[in-house]
């Protein structure tokens, strides 16, 4: 958070004698998806400059992690990107398993993958709804949250919590899933397909929606790479990089799925990518359920993980992008240093480049397509 020289007031005047106005989309604003503050310098309706202010949700997670056992860190990671909890848990658990050179049993990996993909769908559902309501379409959000509820009640039956699950462990899962897990997931897949189709029909080819989003916030592939963007934002600009296929983790290398890649790099591409991704996730889940067989869900390791000294970087494909964690271990039960690579943090850096030259209304749209979660940005 800052109120220093990197902010501006109204007195900046432009060449033709008019005064640019400073519009503050403050920490409390319906469209900023959390406690995030944007200062826009506008000339009439056109944005000339943009300064983002973050840090309102900074909780010192990384320093906290240095004082907690590895199994305690999993709860902290749940709360980083609080929309896609399972992906966060997966990344920390993968990093520690990498350090310890431990593999989770195949059944555990499969269940992890299923839950992560369901979480991806849930996160994208939230994105569709909030993106639509940012633009004034007030109905899709209710439909999408209804579908999210179905997913979350499945999560509740698996882990006991709708959101902050604390279910993955180093070496596997906390406990096995119920017997009706497979059938429940398959039924859920059918329902989710209908929900995604509904949102697709409502929004994708809607004239007004297309007008509001196409050509808005265009970024080229090289610029996107330079800024370190990842996830649907990067793929919309034509760069075919998806951690699940380029550096497969869990059991993704056994799955046959497609990765949508856009070509226009604009907001509509970023939106439509996520619709297609959700459908691909459903296909992954169905393939995984077909492979599910009884077995162990926890590797034989000590309860209190003591990885050897070393460093590990593990990453996974969050619904928002490339979520990574870098652990420096000194051989103890607590990490020496833990650093999170949050995709929303990196994606947010490019906000100014994306928005300058558009209108105020477009600033809201562009921020929506970046799909940030402040818990991840601020940690």
């Amino acid at each position, binding site marked *: 958070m800052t109120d220093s020289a990197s902010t501006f007031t109204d007195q900046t005047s432009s060449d033709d004698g008019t005064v640019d106005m400073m*519009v*503050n989309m403050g920490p409390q*604003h*319906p*469209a900023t998806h959390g406690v995030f503050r944007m200062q826009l310098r506008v000339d009439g*309706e056109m944005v000339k400059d943009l300064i983002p202010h973050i840090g309102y949700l900074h909780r010192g997670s990384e320093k906290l992690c240095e004082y907690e056992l590895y199994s305690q860190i999993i709860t902290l990671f749940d709360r980083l990107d609080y929309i896609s909890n399972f992906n966060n848990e997966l990344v920390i658990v*993968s990093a520690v398993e*990498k350090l310890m050179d*431990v*593999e*989770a049993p*195949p059944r*555990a990996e499969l269940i992890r993958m299923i839950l992560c993909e369901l979480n991806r769908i849930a996160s994208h559902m939230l994105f569709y709804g909030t993106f639509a*309501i*940012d*633009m*004034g*379409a*007030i*109905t899709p959000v*209710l*439909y999408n949250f209804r579908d999210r509820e179905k997913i979350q009640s499945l999560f509740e039956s698996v882990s006991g919590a709708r959101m902050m699950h604390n279910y993955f462990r180093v070496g596997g899962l906390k406990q096995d899933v119920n017997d009706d897990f497979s059938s429940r997931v398959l039924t859920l897949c059918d329902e989710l397909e209908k929900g995604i189709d509904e949102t697709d029909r*409502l*929004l994708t*080819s*809607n*004239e*007004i929606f*297309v*007008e*509001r989003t196409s050509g808005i916030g265009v970024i080229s592939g090289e610029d996107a790479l330079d800024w370190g963007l990842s996830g649907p934002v990067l793929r*919309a600009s034509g760069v*075919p990089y*998806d951690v699940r*296929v*380029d550096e*497969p*983790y*869990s*059991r993704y*290398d*056994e799955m*046959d799925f*497609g*990765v*949508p*890649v*856009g070509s226009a790099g604009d907001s509509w591409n970023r939106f*439509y990518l996520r619709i*297609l991704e959700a459908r*691909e996730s459903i296909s992954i889940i169905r393939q995984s359920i077909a*492979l*599910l*067989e009884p*077995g162990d869900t926890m590797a034989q390791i000590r309860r209190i993980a003591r990885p050897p000294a070393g460093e590990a970087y593990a990453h996974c494909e969050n619904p928002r992008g490339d979520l990574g964690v870098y652990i420096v271990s000194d051989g103890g039960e607590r990490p020496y240093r833990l650093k999170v690579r949050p995709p929303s943090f990196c994606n947010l850096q490019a906000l100014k480049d994306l928005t300058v030259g558009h*209108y*105020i*209304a*477009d600033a*809201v749209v562009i921020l929506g397509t970046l799909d940030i979660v402040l818990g991840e940005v601020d940690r």
Partner: protein
Amino acid sequence: MSFTDILLAFAGILGMFIALSVGVLSLTWLERKTLARIQQRAGPSVVGPHGLLQPVADAIKLTTKEDIIPAYADKLLFWMAPVFVAIPAFMIWLAIPFGDGIAVRVLDLGLLYLVAISGIGVVGLLMGGWASSSRYSMLGGLRAAAQLVSYEIPIVIVILSIAALVQSLSLDAVISGNTITVGDSIRDLPGQGTIPFAFIMPMGLVIFVIAGLAELGRTPFDIHHAESEVVGGPFVEYSGAHWAVFFLAEYLNTFVISALIVVLFFGGWSWPSPPESLFGNDLSNTTTNVLGGVWFMLKTYFVATLIFWVRATYPRLRIDQLMSFAWKALIPLSFGNLVLVAVVLFYDWPLWVMPAVSVPVLIFVATFVQRTRGARGRPQTVRILRRSAGEIGLPVPDLANRTPAGVINQVSGEGQAGD
């Protein structure tokens, strides 16, 4: 004007005031219920049976709320702005006919009166935006003024076309028809009682509905009080009773536009066939009039429900898209409509020529716009790359031979878990 006339006029106005207030409150209930059902929610259901008393609760809440006036606000303008928005909305109802020759005041210049009064509301929004002395409200007020002024024009031109059709500015003539003398012959111009103008002038209907939505400031044209951007626009600093008046004005305007659509295009109070043939032959005058009024109200509420449905479905247009739509699309179309009406009347062609020309034009415009904007072709800008086709990522192992325990011995050392 005798004393009884003045007394009757006052009684009429008071009656209209009360009836309108009840009507508007019921409209708020209808909107909330419609939106809720579309969104798979219950809507108001606690206060009164089916939440019917919810508007009463809302009214009580709003009037007893604390009235906060910003310190730097221009007090006089701040107070006057809601008045300037709400009073014209009431005034328009004076001219609207509920039956044959029944209106609070039968005006010969009804259409002109409508157009004139509806222009005053713009001033109120501008005043609200300026007087609030807040960035967001000023932005919203300016946007609102630009939008409302631009969309007045198509509305006026369509009203002009209707006036040309019945050769009169009176709303009564619009519904009942008009008889004029042209040179030596007497021409009988059909009103809506004969055939609703929606079938004669479909283009006019479409233009009027869209421009009417924009005049109301409703989705998809509600950018000036878009919650997700300017959080209320010119209304953002108003609270309590002041805001209640704005709220009332918005619903009054919705009611008015719905009523105007019915009066101008769907026959007003006239039944498809005379009520006598539907309900028996011996109906008194009063019953006929009451039936006419009820039918009129039913149609108005139906149109209002359609307006709410549109609100639930569409996102909103950006201000520059909105303005370009008005100036580049609606105004040329409305002029075209006027020219069409003029030509048909001048050459005395049969009236079905008008829809025969307008409907293809409308279809062409709609498809042309879709093609140039590229809404249909957009999904092709995204392609799906499959790993199995070698289009992305590392080479994929033989998926046909995978086992539940994993793909064994396929990729050296990088079988499954970890990483």
